[in-house]
C-alpha cells in the first residue's frame, strides 16, 4: 500500500540519486531522514479529530445564539438573487474586502509564504491548499508529498468514461464535456454505495472524503483528455507519474513540458481554488450535495453553473478587449495613446472589461501574485505590457470621473495573458482549468457539510402576490 512504499524508500535511501531526476519538476522523497509516522500524514485521521471538536463548537454556539438576528431581508433582495442575504454557512474561505480571499483565515500572500513548494520551486502546491481548506492547518512538506502520491494513485478513470470522452464531437463545448464526464464518473462513487448500503449518517463525511479525494485525483486526467481530443488531435495523455505532483502530472498530460508552465499551473490551481460559498458553482455543489447526491453529481452540477457566461467566462471577454487594444495601437503603446483608447471605450458607452472587483477595496492579491509571476518570468511579453500599462492608467481616469470604486484589474485579465504566453491559446478551455481548481474548495466544503450534518437546503420562495400581501399592498394595484 502507498504508505508502506514511501516508508520503505525513506529508510533505504542514502544517496540523492535514488530516482532519475528527469526534470526540474520531479521530486524526491529521500531527502529526509526523519520518519514521519502514519498518523501525521494520514489526512483522514487528522480530519476525524478536527471534525469532532468542531461539531461540539458549532453545537454550543447554536445553543447559545441560534435565535440571534443577523440581518434584514427586503423585497428587492427576493427579486435580486438573494444578494447580501446571509443564509448559508461555508467554512473554507471568506472574502475580506481589505485583503482579498482568505483560505481558512490565511490570505494569498500568507499562503504563498507558508505552503510547501517543490524543491527549487517558488509557487505553492495545490495539494497544500486542499490540506489547509480541509483541516484549517498549514501542512508540512511531507504531508503534501503524501497527498501528491495518494492522488497519483487514485487518478485512473474507468474505461466507460474514456470511451465517452473519445466519442464527444468537437462541437461540444469543453465545459459540457467536463461536466458530463464527471457525472459519468459517479459509477465510482463510494458515497452512493455506502448510502444505499444504509450506512449511518455520522459516517457520511468519511465517504464524501473518499469520493472527494478520488474525484480531485481524476480531474486532471479527464481535463487533459478533453484538451487533447479538442486541440491536439486526440493524442494520448500518457501515464501518471507517481513521483510527480498533481500539477506536474496535469501539465505533462496536457502536453506542456516547460517547467515554468507547471509552476504557473500550480499558482493558478491554488488561487482559483475557492471563493466563499455564495457564488454559483460553490453554492450549487453545496445545494445538490444537501440532497445527498454523491460528490460526483454535486460537483458536476457546480460545473454546469461555472459554464454560465456570467460566472466563469469573464476571462475571455478581457482577453478579447486586450487584443483589440493591442491591434488598435499597433505596438505604439505610449501612455497618451493608451489613455485615448481607454477614453474612447468609455465615451462610446462601453465598459473596460476586467477591472473593478465588486467587493475589494485594494488590488486583488490574485491579480497581484500573477503580476509578480509575469514580472519574474515574462516581463517582455507584449500582451503583459499592455495589461501593465492599461492598469497603470485606468485608475486615474476613473477617479477623474468621480468614481470611488476599486478600479484594479480582475484576476481573469491576467490569467489569460499568462496562459497565452506558454502556448495555451484556446480560450474556450480556460474555464475547465478554473473548474479543476474550484474542486479543491468546493469538495473540501462538501466534506464539512456532511461532517456538520447540514440538512437539505430549502429557502422559502414567494409569489409576487404573496410579497404584495406581506407588505400590505393590494395585489390588484
Amino acid at each position, binding site marked *: 500500500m502507498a504508505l508502506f512504499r514511501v516508508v520503505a524508500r525513506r529508510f533505504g535511501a542514502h544517496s540523492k540519486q535514488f530516482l532519475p531526476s528527469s526534470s526540474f519538476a520531479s521530486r524526491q522523497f529521500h531527502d529526509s531522514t526523519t520518519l514521519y509516522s502514519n498518523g501525521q500524514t494520514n489526512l483522514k485521521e487528522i480530519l476525524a479529530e478536527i471534525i469532532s471538536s468542531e461539531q461540539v463548537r458549532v453545537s454550543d454556539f447554536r445553543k447559545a445564539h441560534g435565535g*440571534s*438576528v*443577523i*440581518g*434584514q431581508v*427586503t423585497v*428587492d433582495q427576493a427579486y*435580486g438573487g438573494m*444578494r*447580501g442575504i446571509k443564509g448559508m454557512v461555508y467554512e473554507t474561505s471568506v*472574502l475580506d*474586502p*481589505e485583503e482579498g480571499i482568505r483560505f481558512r483565515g490565511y490570505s494569498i500572500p500568507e499562503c504563498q509564504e507558508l505552503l510547501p513548494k517543490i524543491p527549487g520551486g517558488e509557487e505553492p502546491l495545490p495539494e497544500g491548499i486542499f490540506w489547509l481548506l480541509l483541516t484549517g492547518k498549514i501542512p508540512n512538506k511531507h504531508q503534501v508529498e503524501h497527498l501528491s502520491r495518494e492522488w497519483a494513485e487514485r487518478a485512473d478513470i474507468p474505461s466507460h468514461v474514456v470511451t465517452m470522452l473519445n466519442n464527444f464531437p468537437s462541437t461540444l463545448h469543453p465545459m459540457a464535456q467536463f461536466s458530463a464526464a464527471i457525472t459519468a464518473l459517479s459509477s465510482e462513487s463510494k458515497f452512493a454505495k455506502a448510502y444505499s448500503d444504509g450506512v449511518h449518517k455520522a459516517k457520511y463525511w468519511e465517504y464524501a472524503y473518499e469520493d472527494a479525494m478520488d474525484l480531485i485525483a481524476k480531474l486532471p486526467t479527464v481535463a487533459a483528455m478533453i484538451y487533447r481530443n479538442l486541440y491536439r488531435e486526440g493524442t494520448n495523455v500518457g501515464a501518471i507519474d507517481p513521483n510527480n505532483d498533481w500539477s506536474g502530472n496535469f501539465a505533462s498530460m496536457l502536453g506542456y513540458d516547460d517547467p515554468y508552465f507547471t509552476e504557473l499551473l500550480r499558482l493558478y490551481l491554488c488561487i482559483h481554488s475557492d471563493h466563499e460559498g455564495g457564488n454559483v458553482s460553490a453554492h450549487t455543489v453545496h445545494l445538490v450535495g444537501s440532497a445527498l447526491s454523491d460528490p460526483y453529481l454535486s460537483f458536476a452540477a457546480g460545473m454546469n453553473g461555472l459554464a454560465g457566461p456570467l460566472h466563469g467566462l469573464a476571462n475571455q471577454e478581457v482577453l478579447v478587449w486586450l487584443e483589440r487594444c493591442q491591434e488598435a495601437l499597433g505596438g505604439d503603446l505610449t501612455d497618451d495613446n493608451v489613455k485615448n483608447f481607454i477614453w474612447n471605450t*468609455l465615451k462610446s*458607452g462601453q*465598459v473596460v472589461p476586467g477591472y*473593478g472587483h*465588486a*467587493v*475589494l*477595496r485594494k488590488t486583488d492579491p490574485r491579480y497581484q501574485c500573477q503580476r509578480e509571476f509575469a514580472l519574474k518570468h515574462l516581463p517582455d511579453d507584449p500582451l503583459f505590457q499592455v495589461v501593465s500599462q492599461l492598469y497603470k492608467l485606468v485608475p486615474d481616469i476613473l477617479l477623474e*470621473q*468621480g*468614481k*470611488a*470604486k476599486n478600479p484594479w484589474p480582475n484576476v481573469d485579465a491576467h490569467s489569460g495573458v499568462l496562459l497565452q504566453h506558454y502556448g495555451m491559446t484556446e480560450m474556450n478551455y480556460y474555464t475547465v482549468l478554473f473548474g479543476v481548481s474550484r474542486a479543491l474548495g468546493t469538495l473540501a466544503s462538501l466534506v464539512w457539510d456532511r461532517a456538520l450534518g447540514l440538512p437539505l437546503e430549502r429557502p422559502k420562495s414567494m409569489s409576487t402576490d404573496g410579497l404584495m400581501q406581506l407588505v400590505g399592498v393590494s395585489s390588484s394595484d
Partner: protein
Amino acid sequence: MAKRQTWQKRYIDSGKQFEWFFNFETVKRKVLPFIPKSDECRIIDLGCGTSHFTLDLCKASEFQGSVFLTDFSMEAVFHQQKIYAAPQSSEICYDSGIPCNGVPSNSKTSHLDKSAVSTEHKKSSKLKTKMTSFFLCCDAEMLPLKDHSMDLVIDKGTVDSVLKDKNNGLSRARQMLKEAARILTPGGHYIQFTDEDPDARLSLLENSLCDFDVYRHFNITYSSLGFYGNGIEYFLYVVVRK
C-alpha cells in the same frame, strides 16, 4: 483622498461644485421619502464638500427644520455658506471638540478654550422656508454634537474617501460610522450613497455601528440605485436606529 490637505487644496484650486457619483436629480425619487416633515427635525450632511446635494434636497422637499453642513475642509464649508446665501462675514467653528454656541455639543469632547464663535443662523430668503442652516468645520470621526441629535444623516462618498486611507482607512471608517450612529435619534435614518458592493459595505456597517448584537439596535438594509454609465452600480444603504 482621505487627507484634509488634499481636499483643501482641491477646493482652493477649483471652487466648483463636485459631486461624488451623481447629483440630487438622479436619485431624487429615492431620497425624498427620507426627509422628515417637522420643523423640529435636523438633517446633517457629513463631509458635504462642494456638493449641492443637500441644498437641492432641502429645496425640493421644502424642508422646514435645521440643516447642518459639515466638512473637515474649511474651503468646503465656505463654499456651502455661499450657496446657502449666508453672509461672508460669519465665522465658523473649527477643530472638533470645541463646543459651539447655539449648537448641541458633545460634552465628552469639549476641551479647548480657544474657539471662534460658531455658527450662522440664517433665515434664507432665497429658499422661502423656515429652514435654518449651520456650517461646521469638523472631523466626521469626532463630531462636536450630542448623542441622538440628528434625525437624518447623509453620507455621499464620505466614508468612501476615508476608506482610501492606505494605512488607517478601515479603522477611521469604523470610527466615522460609530459617530454617525451616535448622533442618530431613535427612529432616525443614516443614508449612505456609494458604489461599494453590499458584500463589503454591509459587513463594514455591521462591524462598526455597534460593538455587540448590532441588529438588536439598528436595522440595516440597502437598495440598488442602478447603473449610471460605465457599468458601475450604485447603492443606497439605510441604517435605522431602533
